[in-house]
């Protein structure tokens, strides 16, 4: 166990996991918000655009997107994000994770909008608020609170899904590193539990925090 700790950069791998999680979470939140706005907009074409995005991305395996970003987009179509090979893979991993989870962020936000009773929107309109006003003052604040719990589960899924980046990052990433350690040193349950513990440490606080927030900020009805 001690050998494994000193011979392999496990902390470094988890640092990559954290970096990927934070960067792609920001990206996913931005893209997801835009797609969610498209999906609830009054314009049919925009709604259709948003729906297609979600249906296509959500039904494609993340592994396929990861592999395609390097073997297809970078090597064959020549769309690289950096001239450095490993830097390019890293940046593509962030982009793919962000694009993939944006579909789930969009659905989380939309389900937040769905928690607001229709009466709220009708009341806002009946007292003469414009669409923008009723959105800003009445609907969105409630919708956001309703979306906290599903956003939390999306974030947890994202942290765990960063392991899929091992497909293109190899041993830089924790799943790739575990594969290499297990191949070289044989099965070692302590190593497995160490990696598992790493993810429990990363995801458990997120779960607790978001559950707490969603209960604290819940709109009492």
């Amino acid at each position, binding site marked *: 166990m001690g050998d494994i700790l000193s011979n392999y950069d496990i902390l470094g791998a988890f640092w990559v996991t954290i970096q990927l999680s934070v960067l792609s979470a920001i990206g996913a939140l931005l893209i997801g918000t835009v797609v969610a706005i498209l999906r609830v907009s009054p314009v049919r074409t925009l709604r259709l655009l948003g729906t297609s995005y979600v249906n296509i991305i959500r039904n494609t395996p993340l592994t396929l997107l990861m592999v395609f970003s390097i073997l297809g987009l970078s090597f*064959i179509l020549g769309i690289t994000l950096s001239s450095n090979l490993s830097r390019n893979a890293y940046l593509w991993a962030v982009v793919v994770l962000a694009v993939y989870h944006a579909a789930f962020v969009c659905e989380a936000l939309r389900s937040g909008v769905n928690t607001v009773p*229709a009466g709220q929107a009708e009341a806002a309109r009946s007292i003469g608020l414009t669409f923008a006003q009723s959105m800003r003052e009445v609907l969105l604040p409630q919708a956001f609170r309703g979306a906290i719990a599903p956003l939390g589960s999306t974030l947890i899924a994202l942290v765990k899904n960063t392991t899929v980046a091992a497909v293109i990052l190899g041993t830089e990433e924790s799943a790739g590193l575990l594969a290499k350690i297990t191949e070289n040193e044989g099965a070692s349950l302590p190593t497995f539990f160490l990696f598992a513990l790493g993810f429990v440490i990363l995801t458990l606080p997120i779960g607790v925090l978001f559950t707490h927030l969603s209960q604290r900020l819940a709109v009492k009805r």
Partner: protein
Amino acid sequence: MSSQIVLFDAPGPKARRRHAILTVVGILLALGLLWVVIRKMGEANQLEGYMWSPFVTDPDVWTQYLLPGLWGTLKAAALSVVFAGIFGLVFGMARLSASRWINVPAGVIVEFFRSVPVLIMMVFFYFGYFATSDLVSAQNAPLAAVVLALTLYNGSVIAELVRSGVFSLPKGQSEAGLSIGLTPGQVLRSIQLPQALTAMLPALVGQLVVVLKDSALGYVITYPELLNAAKTLGSAYANTVPAYLVAAAIFIVINYLLTRLATLVERRLGRRGVGSRPVGTEDAETEVGPGLPGGLTSRDA
């Protein structure tokens, strides 16, 4: 807020003009994106006829590569779903047990497997056990690792579904059972579970989509599934990009149909008026019961 109509007023002349402009902008945006994709593919000679014609003219593309790959994906997914269902039922019931000696360990196991990434389990099982020992034949080693990892993760998710399904039943159901003299175990088996299982049917179908997508992780441990088939196809015919696009299309169609099925089942159950509302489906996704940190729902992995 189920109907879109509620969100905005019927548009007046000004709003209609704005909507028309936005429609044009949306169409231009979509066309622009399409144009960039086509131009990039054209530049890299990916639109040449010889890249795409094998999919129509050469039956080997399907019989040697894509269909065996698809079979591998479906086989892994089907086996995992069956085992995960059994695992989920057993551990879901164990978590509902009144005895602390049963429900605490079951809870720890379920929470553990839910928070460890599937890929971590998969590579560990494969490189650590199946590939290096005689537990299963060398040929079946990748399949065993894929199925075991998917079973443990999805079984834990289903266990949570079972638990929340039973919790969402009206209290009167179990009280009525107890009052006619059934034991708690009998109440669970003959009153609560049948209703909870029906209510969670849509979520179970949704979980099938997750399993199907996650089986593509078998790519990492050389399990011959659809993504791996697309890769070998791409190198055999020198058409990597078309091969991946076709594989993606197959995944999208199957998963989309499964999602539609889940919605259909849900609507049907809604009409039948099952004792409780479906759990873990789109609308219930916002609900995270206390003591369910993170509230993993079926569509999140």
